[in-house]
């Protein structure tokens, strides 16, 4: 009977050893890039970073701690995501004003909401070096954000230096993480929302309006300028056209006049005296009917007045002309 006890004892022992060994099995998932740190009697002996089924010497010889290393974690400062957005729902955020309100370099106050994305780059450092690593990171991040914002003026924080500020926070925070041996890599620092405290929000809105006003003034002026210059150019064209027309007219007229003159001259040279007299009289006949005419006698004492009927003597004293004006009739034949 003693023999039977021994016979049963050995398989029992083997079974227990077997089960004990099985407790050393663990899996590493690709999902999130899990890594395992294996400690033998508390001493870190190796790190596993390939996914799959693994085995370590069972407790109490070895223990394992598994951490998702490749997953990007984010740390929210100044706000919290209450509900993530999706195709059928809006994201919901809540503000944490006591975290977001901070002083700027020019002693103003601003709300800054920041998200910090990080990853674990050294799992052993992350687990061992700092107690409560995520909390330590959060405190360091908050200090860095405030420190950097305090180093910039309000306007820069609100508008044009966001990139520079983000980069400065990132490099400061990475330096701190490395100093602490946190084993964390900061991937991205993003200022999500930067806004003035609501107590002064209207004044800030007015600045935005003022900037729009400024642009509007400029645009209106530009519009006006765009009308003035083309109008002047149109006028320029008009003036030049007029001038050219004048020029052509003058030349054409001159040519016409000259042609006329030439023809008359040609006739004239056939019989100068006769033509001359004839021309003179023709002109007079055309011209004189319009005018009032006085004719003075030599010595200026009497005036012979040309009238329709014939001649008339008009007495006059000491150079004073007087008498009736007689319309020269166009029909008067003076030849």
């Amino acid at each position, binding site marked *: 009977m003693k023999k039977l006890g021994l016979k049963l004892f050995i398989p029992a022992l083997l079974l227990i050893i077997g089960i004990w060994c099985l407790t050393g099995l663990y899996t590493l998932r690709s999902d999130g890039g899990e890594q395992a740190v294996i400690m033998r009697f508390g001493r870190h002996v190796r790190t596993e970073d390939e996914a799959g089924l693994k085995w370590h010497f069972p407790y109490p010889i070895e223990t394992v701690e598994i951490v998702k290393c490749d997953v990007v974690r984010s740390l929210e400062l100044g706000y919290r995501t209450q509900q993530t957005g999706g195709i059928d729902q809006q994201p919901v955020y809540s503000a944490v004003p006591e975290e977001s309100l901070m002083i700027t370099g020019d002693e103003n*106050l601003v709300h800054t909401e920041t998200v910090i994305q990080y990853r674990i780059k050294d799992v052993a450092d992350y687990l061992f070096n700092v*107690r*409560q690593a995520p909390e*330590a990171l959060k405190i360091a991040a908050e200090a860095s954000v405030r420190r950097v914002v305090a180093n910039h003026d309000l306007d820069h924080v609100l508008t044009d230096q966001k990139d520079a500020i983000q980069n400065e926070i990132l490099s400061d925070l990475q330096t701190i993480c490395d100093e602490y041996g946190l084993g964390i890599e900061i991937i991205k620092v993003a200022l999500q929302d930067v806004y003035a405290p609501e107590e002064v929000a209207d004044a800030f809105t007015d600045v935005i309006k003022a900037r729009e*006003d400024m642009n509007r003034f400029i645009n209106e002026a530009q519009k006006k*300028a765009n009308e003035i210059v083309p109008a002047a150019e149109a006028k320029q064209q008009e003036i030049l056209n007029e*001038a050219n027309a004048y*020029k052509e007219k003058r030349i054409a007229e001159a040519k016409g006049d000259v042609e006329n003159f030439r023809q008359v001259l040609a006739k004239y040279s056939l019989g*100068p005296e006769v033509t001359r007299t004839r021309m003179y009289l023709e002109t007079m006949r055309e011209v004189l009917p319009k005018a009032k005419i006085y004719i003075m006698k030599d010595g200026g004492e009497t005036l012979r007045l*040309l009238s329709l009927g014939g001649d008339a003597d008009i007495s006059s004293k000491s150079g004073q002309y007087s008498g009736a004006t007689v319309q020269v009739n166009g029909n008067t034949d003076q030849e």
Partner: protein
Amino acid sequence: MNPFHEFKQAYNEQKKQKQQVPGKLIGFLKSLGVIAGAVIVLIIILSSFMFTVGEREQVVITQFEEIVRVIVDEDSYEAISAELKGNPRFANVKIQKGRGLFFKIPLIQQVKRFPNQLLTYDTKTEEVFTLDKKTIMLDNYAQWRISNPALFMVSIGNISQANQRIDEFIYSKMREEIGKIDAFTLVADKDYVYNMLQNVEGYINSQMEAMGIRIMDIRIKRTEYPDATKPSIYEQMRSERQAVATQYRADGQKRARTITAEAQRKATVIEAQAYEEAQKIRGEGDAEALRIYAEAYNIDPEFYSFWETLKAYSSVIDEDTTIIIDSGSPFARYLFGE
């Protein structure tokens, strides 16, 4: 339960049942029980004279409450050795380095574990006063570690006591340093504040070294104005914003006027140039006309002047013209038929 006793009972029962089949299974289970019991006993025995030191720990071994041994990590081994050897109180303490499995004398030696990690101490927000008499709410934090577990155990004891001591040092030293500078420097001068914190750190370390504490980093987490001063800050921000808004509008108007004036200037220049050009063209026309006239009239200048005179009469004389002619003039003679 006593496994041996059960085993014996089972053995007796098996004997009674003349080796029936279920007896085998019961025997097997009893073996399991025996082995489990043996393992538990073994672990209890082993753990009384063996212990582990993890990556996050450093330990002090006491014997009847007297420190006899410390086990620390490899990096701080040298420094801690030097510290303890120089102190007659710890002359008999044995220093070991490394992690893993260690042995002790059961029952009379106790293991006290201390963290070998960076520890965060976040102070509560306190009021400080700057040189320019401003009140600022200051929130610091410090990263520290137990640099020497033996000294720490003797002079501090535990973490919460340590935080208390650190707070006392930081608070008094920070107040002193901040009293030397203006609020603006504290808030905005990154380099100055960095150096200031380094000084504070150096000072506190010189004070706390003997307590086995080392401050690795001190930082200002927050500087805030007290709530009472916020209305005046908002007022200042408001007026500053108004100034900016006014500036924008004035700027806009100035630039608008500049643009308009520039356009007007261009327009004026364009028109003036057009006038210049037009006059030139007209001049050319006039000159060309004159040339044409001159060319023709030079053929017979005398006739030309006669011709022109007649043309002038035509254009000059109208209803309002009164002509006075000497009776001896050729025209009068024509008129009178002489």
